[in-house]
Structures are given as C-alpha cells and as structure tokens.
C-alpha cells in the first residue's frame, strides 16, 4: 500500500522534482521563425497552413463527443478550413480529446511521431491538461505535455464546441505568427520525452532509433 501516494502537502524534494519535470519544454518560440523573421514565402505558406487544418481527432475520452458537434452543421468548423483526416500521414493537428490512459498514451505517441512536420497538438479538456477528475487515477497520465509537446490547451470539462473553435482560432494565430508546430523541438528533446514516456509505459517496444 505504501506505493500509492496519499494526498498531502508535498515535500520540498517533491516540489523540486516537479519543477524539473514540469519545466517548459514547448520551446517553439524562437525555434520556428516568428513574425519578424518570416520571409514572404514562409508567410504565404503559413497562411495556407493556417487555413487548412487536417485534424486527427484522437477520441481517447468523453471529449470525442464534442467533435461531431463541432464539425457538423451547427458549428461548422469546416468554414475555417478544418476537416478530419483519416490517417496521421495526412494530418496536421493531433486533437487529444480528454483523458489519456497509459495504454492509450502509447498509441498517441506513435500517432504523433507518424505525423509530418509541421504538426500541431491540441490538448482538449481538463484531463489532458492536468488529469482533471482523474488527477489521482493510477492509470491515466496527468499532464500531456510531459510526453508530447502541446501547442494549444482548451480548458473545460467538457469544453463546448465554441471553445473548441476558439482553440483552433488560437492555433491559427500561432501558426500565422510562426509559433506553432513542435516537431523539431520534440526531436531535439527526445531524450527527455522518452524518459518520461518510458516511465509510464511499462511494456515499451518502440524501435530504438526514432526515425522522425
């Protein structure tokens, strides 16, 4: 029973460890050229990227129920150029809807790695941000950005379609400014991500060499 931690005031060591663990790793700013450094071509391309978002909606949790509403007639996300993609190869945005069990996390990572740069991740709902109501569950992960880089968080449990669209608009802004897309960051910090990933995924069987 000692392995299950009870809630309580964290010890200083734990706080220190948490600071290391939660250190900001999404350092897209500065890596991807921002508005000032963008050339004209890149600006135009970003414009296209911004208006054409193929979404790989990874329906991991209850949040998936909001996606149909977002996509269909009532909220019509397609007017922003947002449409579903069937496979990660074609997708630009990975949408993590809801909590992630450790079992699911493995698949999410795999999907994320199979997407092509530039690729964006939207963490959708409280669970994906900090564990939400599953904050003390033994088999869900609490913070998505320890395992894959996240561009936009949409808060709420569940976030309504309006806020989903709001999140996408935010992402579009980031893309326009050249601040979104963390594929390269992920590659560079791979060791750190891998360490975190391996910590929760017990039956680790990914290929040793990560071939982006």
């Amino acid at each position, binding site marked *: 029973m000692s392995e299950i931690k009870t809630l309580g005031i964290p010890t200083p060591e734990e706080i220190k460890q948490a600071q290391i663990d939660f250190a900001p790793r999404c350092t897209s700013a500065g890596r991807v050229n921002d508005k000032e450094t963008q050339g004209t071509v890149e600006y135009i391309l970003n414009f296209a990227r911004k208006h054409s978002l193929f979404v790989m909606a*990874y329906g991991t949790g209850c949040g998936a129920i909001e996606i149909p509403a977002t996509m269909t007639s009532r909220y019509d996300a397609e007017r922003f150029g947002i449409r579903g993609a069937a496979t990660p190869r074609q997708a630009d945005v990975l949408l993590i809807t809801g909590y992630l069990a450790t079992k699911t996390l493995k*698949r999410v990572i795999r999907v994320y790695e*199979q997407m092509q740069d530039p690729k964006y991740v939207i963490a959708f709902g409280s669970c994906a941000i900090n564990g939400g109501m599953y904050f003390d569950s033994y088999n869900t992960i609490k913070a998505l950005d320890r395992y894959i880089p996240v561009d936009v968080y949409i808060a709420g449990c569940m976030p309504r379609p309006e806020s989903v669209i709001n999140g996408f608009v935010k992402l579009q802004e980031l893309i326009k400014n050249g601040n979104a897309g963390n594929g390269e960051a992920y590659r560079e910090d791979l060791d750190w991500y891998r360490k975190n990933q391996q910590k929760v995924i017990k039956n680790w069987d990914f290929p040793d060499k990560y071939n982006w």
Partner: protein
Amino acid sequence: MEIIAIILLILLVGSILSFLINRVNKNFTGVTAFLVALASGVVFFTKVQSGYQFNFQLAGLDLQWGLTDYSYYFAYIIFGLSVLALLYSIKYMEGKARLGYYYASFLMTILGMLGVVVSQDFVSLFIFWEIMTWASFLLVIYNSYYKIKTKGIKYMIFSAIGAYAMLTAIVFIRVHYDTLLISEAIAKGAFNFEQYIYIPIFLLLGFGIKAAVMPFHVWAPSAYSKSPMPFTTIFSGAMSKMGIFGIGLVFTTFYLSNDPENFYWVRTILGWLGGITAVMGTIYALIQTDAKKLLAYSSVAQLGYIVVGLSTGTELGVMAALYLAVIHAVFKGALFMVAGAVEKQVGTTDMTKISGLIRKMPWTFFVALVSIIALAGVPPLGGFVGKWLLYEALITESNNYILVVVVFFSSTAAFMYSYRFLFGLFLGQEEKETEHIKEAPVTMIIPMVILAVIAMIAGSYPGLIFEPAAKAMEAIGFQNVSWQMSSLTNIWGDTTDLFLISMMIFAVFIIAFIFLTLKGLKKTRYVGTKDISTSGELPKEWENLTFQIDFFKPFERAAAPLYSMNMNKIWKNLGKNLEAFFGFFRKLYTGNGQTYALFVVIFLVVLLLFKDVIFS
C-alpha cells in the same frame, strides 16, 4: 541432306546428348542444352529462308517440309523463347533431380514445335504434334509426383482428344481431297464448312484444345502451373501458339476464300468461344492465391483474346491475333520466369505466404512490373497495341458488338489479377521470413530483362512485329496488309500515334519524377513497411499485416453466377460417370467359367437365329 532435317537432327541429337551428359557431369547438362538450342536457332535463321521446301516420301505418302512466311513467324516465337528459357533453366534447375530427363524432354518439345511449323503436310504435322505433346507431357509430370493421376493425365487425355480429332480430319482430307499437303488442301477448299463440315470442325477442335479454348481449357491451368517454370514459359508462350497457328491456318484461309456472309455463324461461334474463354480465364485467375496458377489462368484468358482476334477474319483482327501471339509469348514468358525466380529464391509462389520482395529482388520486380503493364494492356507498352487492334477490329470490322464488351470486361477484370500478382509477390509487408532472400542469379535475370525490353520497345515500335506479321498474313491469303512503324490506324481512319504517346508519357514521367524527388529531397525519408499508420498500434514482428486472402471477395460475391459455371466440375463428373458406366460393363467378365460357356452357347444360338439377317 536438307537443312531442316539437319536442324531437327541437331535438336534430336542434342536431346540425347544432354541426357547422356547428365550421367557424366550434372553441371554441363543445362549449358549443353542451351548451346544446342542456340546453335539450331542460329542455323535456322541464317540458313533457312521462308519459301524453302522439299518433298520426300515416307510410308508411301507424299510429304513436304518447308517454310512459309506464316510458319516463319511462329518459328520466331519458338526459337526466341526457347533459347531464353533454356538460358534461364541453367540456374533454375541447378541442383534438381533428373536433369537429363528434363533437358532431353525440353529439346524434344522444341523439336516437336519446330516440326509442327515446318510441316507442310498433315502427316508430319500430326507426327510432330504428337512428339510435342508427349515430350511436354513428360515435363508436365516432372514435378507432380503425387498428382499424376489428376494433373498429367488430364493434360494427356485432352491432348489426345485434340490430336485424334485432328487425325480424323486429316484422314478425311486424304480421302475426300486426295492430298496430304496443306497448301493443296487449302487450294482445294478442304477447310470449307459447307462440303464436309466435320473436317474443319475436327481440325479446329484439335488445334483449339492446344490453344486452351473453352470448354477444353481445363487441362491448361494445372498443366501450366505444375510444370517447371522455364518450361511453362515455352508451354504457355510458344506451344499454345501452335494451336493458334493451326486455327489461323484453318479458319483464316477458309474465311478469306469464301463469302463471309454465308459463314457468319462460324465466326460468331469461334469468337464467342474465345470471348468466354477470356472471361472465364480471367475471373478464375483473380481468385487464385498461387502466383503460378494465376498466371496459368491468365494465359488461358489471353489465348481467348487471340482466338477472338482470329475469329474476326479481318485484316485488323488477324493482325491483332498474330501480334498478341508474339507479345503474349513475350510478357507471359517473362512473367512465368518471374514466378520461377521467386520460386527458386523463396521456395514457394503462394501469395498468402510471401510478400514484399520488391527490395530483395528489384530486377525481378522491374521485369514483373513491365510485363504486367504489358499484360494489362495499358499504354505505352506492347500489350496496349494488341488490345487496341483487337477492339478496333471487333468494333469496326466485325458485327460482334456484344463480344467487344465481353472481351473488354475480361481485360478490365484482368487489371485485378495483374495487380494481385504484383502485390502478392512484391508489394505489401516485408516479412521477417523473407529477410534473407537474394536477387535471382544473373543468368536468370538476363532472359527476363530481354523479354521485358522487347515488351517496352514493342509499345513504341510495334512495326517491328507488324512487319513479319504482315508477311505471315499475306502468306495465308491477305492482300497488301498495311502497317506503320509506330502508329495504328483502323479502317475508319482513326489513328493512334504510339511514338508520340510514349514520348509524351516519358516526358511527363521525367518531369514529375524530378519534381517529386527533388522537392524536399533531404526531408523525405524512406521507411520500412512496418512503419504504417495502424491506429497508433505498433505492428509486431510476427504480425502478418498483408492483405492476401480473399483479395477480391467483393467481386467474387458480385460475380457469383459466373463462378458457378465451373467447367472443371462438369468434366470431372463426366469422368466419374463414365468410370461407373465402364464398371458396369466390366462385370460382363464374371470370372466364372460357366458364364463364359453360357456366353458362347447364347452367342451361337443368337447367330443361328439371326443368321439370315446378318448374312445373306
């Protein structure tokens, strides 16, 4: 001594020689056979001209050997394919048992085929036909230790039916027209459907069985797929063309010398037989899981096209048939060699067991790709020319409009098995079991590549084949056959410019290829086939993700009525019923002496009773 006799003798001696050499040293058998075939081929093409002939007497019959342009055309197929197949055999057969037997039968088959085309009289034709048949029979049963009863015998029985039908016709030609020379028989109108209808029908039956025409095609798939692969190239590529040779000789000469209006039914029946053969061959090809079997059924289908082409009896149609005869020999020869190479390297051609050989055997794949494109009839390779000629002949010059659709359906469905073949062997997941596979030996690759290159060249310059084909057609009764080097024209004057098309395709290919390759060259990665998007799941090593079983199940379901017509079953039932019937008669021999004595007495009484009826 006559040069033809010398060539045949070279082959005969070579056959015996390779058998004997195998007793001494197994390594030289293949080389000997190859050299013999090459030597006879070289002698043939350098020393023998078309128009050559000589007469002699045997068994009190006037016989004649010689070569017309028509038979010369088929000699190209025979020698071209045989030499390549023997070259291919050297490595393919390495380490197999009974090499002497194999090569001796192989050369005997070549002898038989060559004999068939050089025979200008029916008796030598029949003799060589039978030599060809039994020599090939020996090769058909080479592999099938356990299946002799069902596979080899089936081939032999159908061949015998064909041969004896032919013999009947020959005998009657001799009786009615008092000649055994083919040219005289043609001149006297022996193939006329009006006078003695059984003569041409029996001849067509005899040749048709070799050409695997419905409903006598059932021997072909198993015989083709069970033979050693180098031989199957000959079997399907050249020997089946002997049937086409005969059909062309009988039907076309008859058709040209008579008023077509009266014999519309002949052509319709022949055409439909060809069409149904094509369809049935195709739909059975696409449900096969064994690559060899697939190709075998596909051969049946392709022979169906050729028969359809011949059945039109028009210039374009016969040209289509002759062209297809060559191009089919080329691409199907190459494909059987591909299957053989795979079999040699992997040990099986079962498509459910192997996949993803493209990186292991790139040259083989290249040949397979080119040949399959030619087979499917997609421009700009050689197969398209044949398809074009066939369709245009049917549409513009024949009245069989529905037949066009049947043939077209068959060739559309042929896309399916074409794809299935490439996908099954070369594409798909690269499995761990095939990791160690190497490319086939060079002597196996060379003949394949030569055939593939021919298929490619024929797509842009079909005139190279049209030229001898036109001569051949003039030899069987057409006048002034027109052809162009690299464009096709039908009688309505519509043209297709093949050279232009090839150039166009080539240019676009280069541009698109360069664009795709150069764009993001450094950021484009080539990954293995395990790196696929399977809903985030990581494929395990042992997981077989290749889709191979029931590949065309939806089509099967849709075309279920077509599949219910299984000729094989009908023949099998016939065989069973016959045996039961025979069993009944056999019981007349009871083994009981009293019964036999009773028979004698009864027979005597019956004879005495009916003596006035029987004797007068």
